[in-house]
């Protein structure tokens, strides 16, 4: 079974995000970048399926500028077999990303598509669901467990207030939540080996896609900053402040 994993290159989750003063966006220049943590979990799941003899080939795909290849090489080092880079300098919205992935799916014919539930940059939480709709495939979002037997996948989903178990007939699209697994680190030998794994580069023109421009980010602003508060002398003062000043305790 072929598995496609879609990954996004984002600002490293441990780096402080700074907003450009002109409101044009978040400053990514010189920022440390990483594979989106949820996508990393999706990739780890694919690798575990391969180790279990269920997946036969793992393809990772990413959309972005030239530097995106660094993220794809990391994925290859973790254990993906081949990478597809859709090279563009435009920031694509989830609908466009889903359309690009739809094209890749038509070419590659995977039985399973794994993605992170959302990127930690755009926080949209849309791409997997949109891709599933375009393909008219079943979907399982926010999964924390996956078992596959023949063409049936049993998944556990993290929903508000609990868990839900579904069974899906493959092919299907799934999005990974935090608890699905702990992604591995790539070993040095595998990093070296990844340099020789196939990585193909496509452009949006190659995919013959006309994308809509009906979604425009007009400004990006920092959130209202919190003003540092006061250090109090004891518990009694705290209780008093919470009751009478902040009025959050009765």
């Amino acid at each position, binding site marked *: 079974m072929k598995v496609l994993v879609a990954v996004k290159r984002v600002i490293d989750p441990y780096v402080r995000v700074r907003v450009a003063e002109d409101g044009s966006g978040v400053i990514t220049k010189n920022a440390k970048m990483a594979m989106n943590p949820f996508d990393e979990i999706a990739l780890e799941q694919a690798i575990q399926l391969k180790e279990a003899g269920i997946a036969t080939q793992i393809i990772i795909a990413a959309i972005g500028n030239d530097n995106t290849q660094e993220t794809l090489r990391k994925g290859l080092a973790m254990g993906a077999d081949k990478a597809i880079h859709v090279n563009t300098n435009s920031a694509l919205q989830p609908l466009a990303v889903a359309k690009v992935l739809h094209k890749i799916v038509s070419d590659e014919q995977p039985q399973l598509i794994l993605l992170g539930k959302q990127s930690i940059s755009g926080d949209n939480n849309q791409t997997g669901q949109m891709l599933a709709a375009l393909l008219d495939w079943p979907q399982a979002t926010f999964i924390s467990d996956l078992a596959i037997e023949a063409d049936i996948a049993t998944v556990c989903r993290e929903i508000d207030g609990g*868990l839900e178990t579904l069974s899906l*007939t493959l092919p299907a699209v799934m999005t990974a939540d935090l608890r699905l697994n702990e992604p591995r680190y790539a070993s040095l030998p595998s990093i070296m080996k990844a340099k020789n794994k196939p990585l193909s580069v496509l452009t949006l023109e190659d995919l013959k896609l006309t994308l809509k421009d009906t979604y425009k980010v007009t400004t*990006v602003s920092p959130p209202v900053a919190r003003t540092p508060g006061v250090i109090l002398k004891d518990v009694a003062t705290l209780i008093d402040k919470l009751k009478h000043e902040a009025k*959050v305790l009765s």
Partner: protein
Amino acid sequence: MSVIILAEHNHGHCHPNTLHTITAAQQLAAKVDVLVVGFQCQSVADELRLIEGVNSVLLADSQCYNNQLAEPVAKLLHNHAVHYTYLLAPASTFGKNIMPRVAAMLDVHQVSDITAIKDAQTFVRPIYAGNALETVQCTDEKKVLTIRSTAFALAKQGSQQAACVTIDDVIDWQKTRFIKQTLTKLERPELGVADVVVSGGRGLQNAENFKLLEQLAGKLNAAIGASRAAVDAGFVPNDYQVGQTGKVVAPRLYFAIGISGAIQHIAGMKDSKVIVAINQDEDAAIFNYADYGLVGDLFEIVPELIKALS
């Protein structure tokens, strides 16, 4: 212009999220319809008919919607989208699961997790776990939006009863089967929606000491959270994690206890109304975000706090 809201409910009652979404919808159009999809859920429709600002309730009550699976529900909403300019749902796991599917079927974008509506096509939403706010202009003919509940007030009961229209569409979808749902019987409120959250960090030193936080949470009817450091150290399970890669919370009152204030954690809690930090390191970054701070040994301060609240 008109709005249709996909109602979140548990077949017995409508979820408060739906009522927050109704308030947001009223800012967009005068005509707000609510779609209730499920099986044997007339009571939900009846509840919603009484809410102020609801024009009519559409009820799709059929066994095929019993478990509110994304695929059939999305198809149903898509079937009825033609009459509406806006399609809304709460930005909960329920709405997030279904709405992007509807948007893609309509070949339109979705604007996720809206915290403010500027005009008919301009919306504000948090990105980077709330570390930045994005203003988006969406000019698609139909707009699919999910609404962050904490940003809009709860719609109230009105004095009139809206019409209830029955929808007979039956959608056959065999590729997904529901097996079971396990809802956590919580002794405490759910972390994501709790009014008060008590979180612990590495300063708690071990899993055993988290019991201290449980006592405090008990007094405050609070949910318990943790920093990533505490989760990684194995003090508590992963689902306690508040932070950029964990849960994003915005309670009325947040206690950060023995938490240094890593960016990761701040991103998950800085929209809380009032933040209290307890830490022995007076230079800890958490004090830059806290409204009230206590510097000292948490193993002395927390028991004192518990006593004072008793």
